[in-house]
């Protein structure tokens, strides 16, 4: 597999070099270079070091695997493909994502999945192993966000979860009661026998990060969906 040392290039050059190659590559020594793998399709890019903001923006089918942490706006508006993060992610993970999947082993920052949307067969998915910051799923219009809260007994998301949510689903694995949620959100409790709908993603997470399924299903989930009486719904469909 072709190896590229990111330290040899300025970030724009690095992106040109990546685009000029075909097939699978390994990028080593990343340190804040932006827009890596922007719009990439049909290949695998393995990244070590800490890549810069907007990694995998507009991703169009490629698989990106990051061995360490990632910064902000990973998978911004991604269309398809998969991003695997073997560390934690910064703010606005999966911003306006419209397809594909993102798996994060550790935590994610503020506004995870903000403005995610779905259309027909396109249904984006974000799975976070640890906890997510505040404004999780803000203005969520579609897609699925799963937060597993591994290693934590407190509710695995910050305040204002689902603010402005009007589509999609957020699943949070926790026995702790959710904090006060915005009025646009309905909460239902789902025990281990009712999680078949998200099993494929739990199974992927289990395999990717070597966490036993028994641990992932040891706690029940809170399932958040838009409130049918939501003022946001009325806002967008006046008649």
């Amino acid at each position: 597999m072709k190896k590229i040392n990111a330290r040899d290039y300025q970030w724009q050059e690095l992106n040109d070099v990546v685009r000029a190659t075909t097939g699978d590559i390994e990028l080593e020594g990343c340190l804040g270079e932006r827009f890596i793998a922007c719009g990439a399709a049909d290949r695998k890019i393995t990244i070590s070091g800490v890549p810069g903001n907007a990694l995998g923006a507009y991703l169009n089918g490629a698989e990106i695997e990051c061995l360490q942490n990632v910064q902000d706006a990973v998978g911004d508006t991604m269309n398809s493909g998969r991003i695997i993060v073997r560390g934690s992610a910064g703010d606005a993970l999966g911003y306006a994502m419209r397809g594909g999947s993102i798996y994060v082993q550790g935590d994610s920052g503020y506004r995870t999945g903000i403005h995610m949307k779905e259309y027909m067969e396109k249904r984006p998915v974000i799975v976070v192993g640890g906890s997510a910051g505040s404004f999780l799923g803000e203005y969520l219009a579609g897609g699925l966000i799963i937060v597993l809260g591994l290693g934590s007994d407190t509710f695995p998301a910050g305040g204002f979860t689902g603010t402005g949510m009007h589509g999609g689903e957020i699943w949070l694995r926790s026995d702790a009661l959710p904090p006060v949620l915005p009025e646009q959100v309905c909460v239902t409790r789902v025990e281990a026998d009712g999680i078949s709908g998200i099993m494929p993603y739990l199974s992927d997470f289990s395999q990717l990060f070597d966490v036993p399924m028994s641990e992932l299903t040891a706690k029940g989930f809170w399932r958040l969906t838009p409130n049918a009486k939501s003022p946001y719904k009325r806002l967008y469909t006046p008649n």
Partner: protein
Amino acid sequence: MGQINLPQDNALMRAELPREGEFRNPSGCAISGMISTSGKRFSGEDIIRSISVMHDRSNGLGGGFAAYGIYPEYKDFYALHIFFDDSAAKHECEAFLERHFDIINLSKIPTRKSPAITDEPLIWRYFVTPLPTKLASSQLDEREFVARCVFRVNTRIKGCYVFSSGKNMGVFKAVGFPEDVGRFYRLEEYEGYAFTAHGRYPTNTPGWWGGAHPFALLDYSVVHNGEISSYDANRRSIEMHGYKCTLQTDTEVIAYIIDYLNRRKGLSMKEICSVIAAPFWQTIAQMPPEERAEAEYLRNAFSSYLITGPFSIIVGFEGGLMALNDRLKLRSMVVAERDDMVYISSEEAAIRVISPELDRLWYPEGGQGVIITVNGGDEKCR
């Protein structure tokens, strides 16, 4: 973000810059800070390397550094760093300083010529202490006396700008990219226990040397990424207490608010966080009674100093740093620890470049200040 206003009379600058649409800057402003909690002094080299990783967050219209613990041989004297437009301004300013201070030492601040830094003003440094007779007759405490002299120079003497006025610390700033500014001031030749840095992407004012960050008064300094929506409300309030905002730059008002709340009102840095990034009423309503009472008091008593709009800031003060995000956390910030060092930055990469291995890394929540002091020192009012 916003537009960049270039000085309209600078034909050369207009000719050299690409036209709108020919160039895209991926926006931002960048901040970085580092502190040794054991008080060990280290070179300014690291902070230059850290901020340079985020080169593309600024656009060459401003960069700067605050360095703490760099003047141990003059630690009992106020270090005034001053920009002069010309030698006439310098003479007038020096006459003022001689009337109010004992000048222990004065010199040009050493710089290194660089094609990246041009149009520099005269840049001088004065180590001073207030004249005892002047101080006594003013009936002010020493720090207030110095602060008032700084405002006097900055508002009354044309062509002079005191941009640093603390003890055992200094601000170094210019128009340029931050790493070039650091080399220009030979920052790697200084040793301090804490440094902060800023790369500027001005959105509301033309980039000028005085408008670069950090903004400082006495030993307080602020570097800021963001844009304050409440600027004018904050400015009107702080100006009632004798502060003069001379630059129309939002960060300046933050520096004065910090000085006012800490030095003059005696609030701790933690309490200051609850004032300038006050929790929402909705959040306060969910707090346990004692905590709620305190949060309500601070929001009500200092409501004019609530700062709204996106920001991440690093405040430097004698013996410590404080990092804070706006309560919605609309700007990024990462904090990390390695041995006795604590690092704060807009991006993790700017920390990893200095310390690839870290003991701990976390993203502070919006409105939750991170306060780091040397040897666990008390940051409460002094």
